[in-house]
C-alpha cells in the first residue's frame, strides 16, 4: 500500500498530465478531495489554467483546507495572471481568514472586475475576527467598515449588494459598528438606484433589528 504522500504525488501527477478539459476537472476534483496541505501549490496553479470547471474544483479544495492555504494564496496575488487572481480572492473571501483583510480592502476598493470586487466586499464582512489578537480586532473591523461604506457607492449594483451583505455580517460581529452600519443601510434603502439593493438593505436592517430585540429579551 502506498504512503499518503505517494498517493498525493499520483493525484498531483494526474492534474499535471490530464490532456482534456474534462480530464483536468476530474483530476482536480480528486486532488481537492484528498484535502491535503501538500496539494495547495498545485491547486493554486490550477486557478491560472483558464478552465472554469477546474478552477471551481480547485477553489473548493483550497477553501476546505482553510487557513493552511492562506499564505500561499496571498503570495499568488503578486503574480501577473489576472484570472488566477480573481479565483484566489474568491477563495480567500470564503476561507474568512483575517490575514486576507488588506488584500480584500484593496480589491473591494480598486479591482476593475466587478465579480472580484463583489467577492471581496462580501468577504470583508464575514472574516473570522476571533482569529485575530484581541487588541487588533477593533482596528481591523474599523478598516473593513470604512471600506464597505465606500463600496456602497460602487457603480455596479451587484457590488453594492455584496457590500450590504458584508455590512450585515459586520454589524452582527461588532456592536460598536452597528449604529453606523444601520444608518448607512437606511440610506441605501432610501436612495440606492436599484430595487434589489434597496431590498437587500431592508432585509439587513430587519435582521439586525430582530437580532437586537432577541438580544434584549435574553437580557431580561
Amino acid at each position, binding site marked *: 500500500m502506498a504512503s499518503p504522500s505517494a498517493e498525493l504525488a499520483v493525484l498531483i501527477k494526474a492534474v499535471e498530465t490530464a490532456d482534456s478539459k474534462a480530464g483536468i476537472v476530474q483530476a482536480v476534483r480528486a486532488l481537492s478531495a484528498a484535502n491535503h496541505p501538500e496539494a495547495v501549490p498545485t491547486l493554486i496553479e490550477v486557478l491560472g489554467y483558464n478552465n472554469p470547471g477546474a478552477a471551481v474544483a480547485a477553489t473548493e479544495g483550497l477553501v476546505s483546507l482553510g487557513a493552511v492555504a492562506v499564505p500561499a494564496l496571498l503570495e499568488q496575488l503578486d503574480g501577473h495572471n489576472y484570472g488566477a487572481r480573481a479565483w484566489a480572492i474568491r477563495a480567500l473571501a470564503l476561507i474568512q481568514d483575517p490575514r486576507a483583510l488588506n488584500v480584500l480592502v484593496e480589491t473591494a476598493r480598486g479591482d476593475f472586475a466587478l465579480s472580484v470586487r463583489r*467577492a471581496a466586499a462580501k468577504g470583508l464582512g464575514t472574516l473570522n475576527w476571533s482569529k485575530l489578537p484581541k487588541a487588533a480586532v477593533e482596528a481591523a473591523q474599523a478598516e473593513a467598515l470604512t471600506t464597505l461604506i465606500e463600496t456602497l457607492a460602487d457603480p455596479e449594483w451587484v457590488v453594492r449588494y455584496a457590500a450590504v451583505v458584508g455590512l450585515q455580517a459586520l454589524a452582527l460581529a461588532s456592536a460598536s459598528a452597528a449604529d453606523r452600519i444601520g444608518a448607512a443601510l437606511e440610506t441605501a434603502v432610501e436612495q440606492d438606484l436599484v430595487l*434589489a439593493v434597496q431590498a437587500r438593505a431592508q432585509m439587513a436592517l*430587519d435582521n439586525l433589528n430582530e437580532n437586537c430585540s432577541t438580544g434584549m429579551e435574553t437580557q431580561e
Partner: protein
Amino acid sequence: MALEFQQLVNAQGESLTVEQAIANLRQTADPSLRYYAAWWLGRFRVKEPAAIAALVTALDDETDRAPDGGYPLRRNAARALGKLGDRTAYPALMGCLDCADYYVREAAIQALEMLGGDACIPALRAMLAGGVDAATQVTGKPHLVQPYNAILEALGSLGARAAVEEIAPFLNHPVPQVQNAAARAMYQLTGDAAYCDWLVQVLQGPNLQLRRSAMMDLGAVGYLPAAGAIATTPAENSLKLIALQGLLEHHLQAMDFPANPLSSDARQVMALMDDLL
C-alpha cells in the same frame, strides 16, 4: 445622481465630455469616433435633446459600412436610443424595422421594446409573416432571416395578446433559443406557468448556451418559482445573479416594495443571491 456622476468619472481613460461625444457623433469625417460616441451616449444615459437628435440622425447614416454591407453606426445609435428612453425617437426606430441590416432591425426592435407602447406591434407581427416555415437561416450568415428572438420577446413584453396564435408555432422552431423566446412570450401573454416550467427544464439540460438563455428569459419575465433552479444550474454566478435580480425586482414591484415590507419569497431569493456573491 451621485452614482451617475461616479460612472462618468470612472470612464476616464476612454473619457469624453457630453459635448465632445455629441460633437463626435455629428461630424462625419471619422466613422470610428462616431461609432464610439453613439455607444458612449447610451452607456452614460445622456438624455439631452441634442444627443437624441444626433442619434436619430445617425439612424440614416450611409457612411459607416461594415464588410458584410451592414451599418455599424446605425446599430449603435438604435441601441443607445433604447437606453435613453426618449419617445421622440420612436418613429425613426420604426423606420429601422425595414433596414436591410439584420442587426439594425434587431437593435431597433429591442429599443422599441424598451421604449414601450403598442404602436410597433403590427409591424412586429408582420415580421413573423410566413411563420416557422419562413423562419430559415440566411445562406452564409450566422442568423435567421429575421431577428425572431427579439421579435418574440418584444411582442411578449409589450403585451401583444392578439399575436398569441402567430407566436405559438415558434415553440417548435428548430433553433432552441427561438423556442425559449416563444415560451417566454407565451407566458407573458397567457400567464400559463407551463411555459416557464418548460424553461426551467432547459436549466437541467446539457447545453450551457441554452441554460444561459433560459435563465435570462426566466429572470426577464420574473418567474419566481424558478429561483432555486436558477441558483443551482451549472453557469456563471454573474449571470445567475442578474437572472435572480430580475425575479426579485418583478416580485418587489408587484408587492409595491418599499411601501410594503419584504415578503418571505423576496427573502428567499435574496438568500440564494447571497450565496452566489
